[in-house]
């Protein structure tokens, strides 16, 4: 199983490579990718350095161009495809059918991966992209159980990559508009969910309110640690209860099911978090590397080590982790 790690800047990229990532995925500094955050991502100059740093060490560079261009600005996505191809990257991670059509026509030899943002959950869907654009890998949304992933793998015409660690989208990716409903900006249109530009932290008499474009996402009492107001991870009221109605602030962690993922034929494990720090990338990459190596050496006797779990807990949202949809009871 290949380990695919995130990098939002050069120090993160080095941390990923130095700690054992097989591949690193990055994006350009604009709205062509789904981590379009201030101060993040790669310019021409840093992009070139990133590609050579990774490739000189025998690792691969994937470029996420995984938002959905509208007619105005479509050239930006074409330019991103061209630039990445000209730098000799190992694969593009694409979501939009129009962008994919362009990339496969202009750069027929370039590896194309279907992004999680394409929202494809079945082998039939994968076949569409394989037959029309020759994709060579698919990244599955975080909505399938392990047995459902296994079923897709048996029928998929291309290798399957799944998420192994990081912040958890509770909605099927690529078809979640909660963020644009509240702010006008979504992962699809703008490359960001619950964008910082619309966030307000507000001290109240009894704690802190977090708001997204004015909408109260959560209220934290005195002494309670306030989290970032990601829309789906707030506390809301339904009926008589106020609770995390959609999802708790928690991260996905698959260490305990790695042998299972290996057994069903998962080809690559992806770590989420291009927006996170170089320290996060380094820690998570090191743990995942050790775990995957151990799992592939002794799948029968593999157990996640306490120190791995502790390390990952320290960099998890709300210091909690979950198996998410992989584990049926979560659903």
């Amino acid at each position, binding site marked *: 199983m290949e380990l695919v790690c995130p990098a939002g800047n050069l120090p993160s990229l080095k941390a990923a490579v130095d700690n054992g990532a097989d591949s690193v995925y990055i994006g350009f500094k604009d709205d062509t990718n789904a981590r379009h955050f201030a101060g993040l991502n790669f310019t021409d100059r840093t992009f070139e350095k990133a590609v050579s740093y990774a490739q000189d060490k025998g690792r691969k560079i994937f470029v996420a161009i995984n938002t*959905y*261009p*509208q*007619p*105005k600005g*479509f050239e930006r996505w074409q330019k991103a495809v061209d630039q990445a191809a000209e730098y000799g990257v190992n694969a593009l991670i694409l*979501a*939009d*059918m*129009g*962008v994919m*059509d*362009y990339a496969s026509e202009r750069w027929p030899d370039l590896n194309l991966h279907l992004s999680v943002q394409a*929202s*494809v*959950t*079945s082998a*039939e*869907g994968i*076949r*569409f992209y394989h*037959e*029309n654009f020759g994709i060579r890998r698919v990244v599955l949304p975080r*909505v*399938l159980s392990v047995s*459902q992933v296994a079923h897709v793998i048996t029928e998929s015409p291309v290798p399957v990559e799944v998420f192994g660690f990081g912040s958890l989208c509770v*909605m*099927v990716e*690529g*078809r*979640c*508009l*909660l963020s*644009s*409903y*509240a*702010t*006008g900006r*979504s992962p*699809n*249109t703008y490359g960001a969910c619950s964008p910082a530009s619309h966030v307000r932290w507000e001290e109240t008499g009894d704690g802190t309110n977090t708001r997204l*474009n004015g*909408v*109260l*996402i959560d209220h934290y009492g005195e002494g309670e640690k306030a989290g970032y107001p990601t829309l*789906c991870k*707030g*506390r*809301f*009221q*339904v*009926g008589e*209860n*106020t609770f995390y*109605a*959609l999802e708790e602030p928690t991260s996905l962690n698959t260490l305990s099911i790695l042998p299972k993922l290996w057994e069903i034929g998962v080809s690559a494990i992806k770590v989420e978090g291009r927006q996170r720090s170089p320290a996060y990338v380094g820690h998570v990459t090191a743990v995942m590397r050790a775990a995957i190596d151990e799992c592939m050496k002794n799948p029968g006797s593999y157990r996640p080590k306490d120190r791995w779990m502790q390390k990952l807990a320290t960099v998890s949202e709300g210091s909690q982790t979950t198996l998410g*949809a992989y584990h049926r*009871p*979560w*659903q």
Partner: protein
Amino acid sequence: MKLSLGPIQYFWEREHVLDFYQQAADSAADIIYLGEVICSKRRLVKFEDWLAIGNELKQSGKEVILSSLTLLEAASEMSSLKKLCANDAFMVEANDISAVQLLSSAGKSFVTGPSFNIYNGRSLKLLAQKGLKRWVLPVELGLDTLRDLQEVRPEGLETEVFALGRLPLAYSARCYTARSHNLPKDDCQFKCLDYPDGRILETQEKQEFLVLNGIQTQSALTHQVLEQVPELASLGVDVLRISPQHRGTMQILDIFYKSINNNDIEDLFEDLLLLIPHGVCNGYLIEKAGMEYGTRQTA
């Protein structure tokens, strides 16, 4: 412009569904979309029933389309989808790429629904070559993008706009209605039946924000484009979609019918507001946050 009645998003009692489509047979809708698009566990109306309802509506002069499930996970859902796409009676609305693949590889024409991502002309053109006959503008896109897309849309392709209804905003593996009752999805006890317009989710300040509808999350506000009907007509939009709500859907269809036929929109808007459960929005259409409501200068 024609009017369509979108698929029922909620889980209704069988009798209610049958009654609803009896009324729809005499309604202002020209096109009627049928089928379960949210949850495969909702089986009070079966595939054969949908075909029967479709045949009756067809005899009443309606164009009938069968809508596919939006989020596919289980192998059984794929089997149902294959059966749906293999039907020879009616065209299918694909709400997921799996359906597009099945239909296009069988050489069948199809429609794409509001949660199917078509954001640019290149995608539109490609899908038209695959058999796309009508597409619904993704709900988060507005008039400016619609105008650009109308300029490049392939010959003969019809454009439909989600004109009224709670917005389909997200889909998940998790069932939120069951979760709100502290029940697992596998033992949901069909709680959705208790919420024929979905279950309201409020902020801690009592702002009615979202609606839980099984695995789907909707807006609490009803998106409506009544005031933009003349502009949508001038942009060459072919169909306006009314998404069913528990009460008043046929009256809403009448209101939109009148708006298309040049009645005074201000008066109609007053009538419309009386039929809406929790207030209206139109932000997406006017290029703002979806939950906002406002007017826009006609360009």
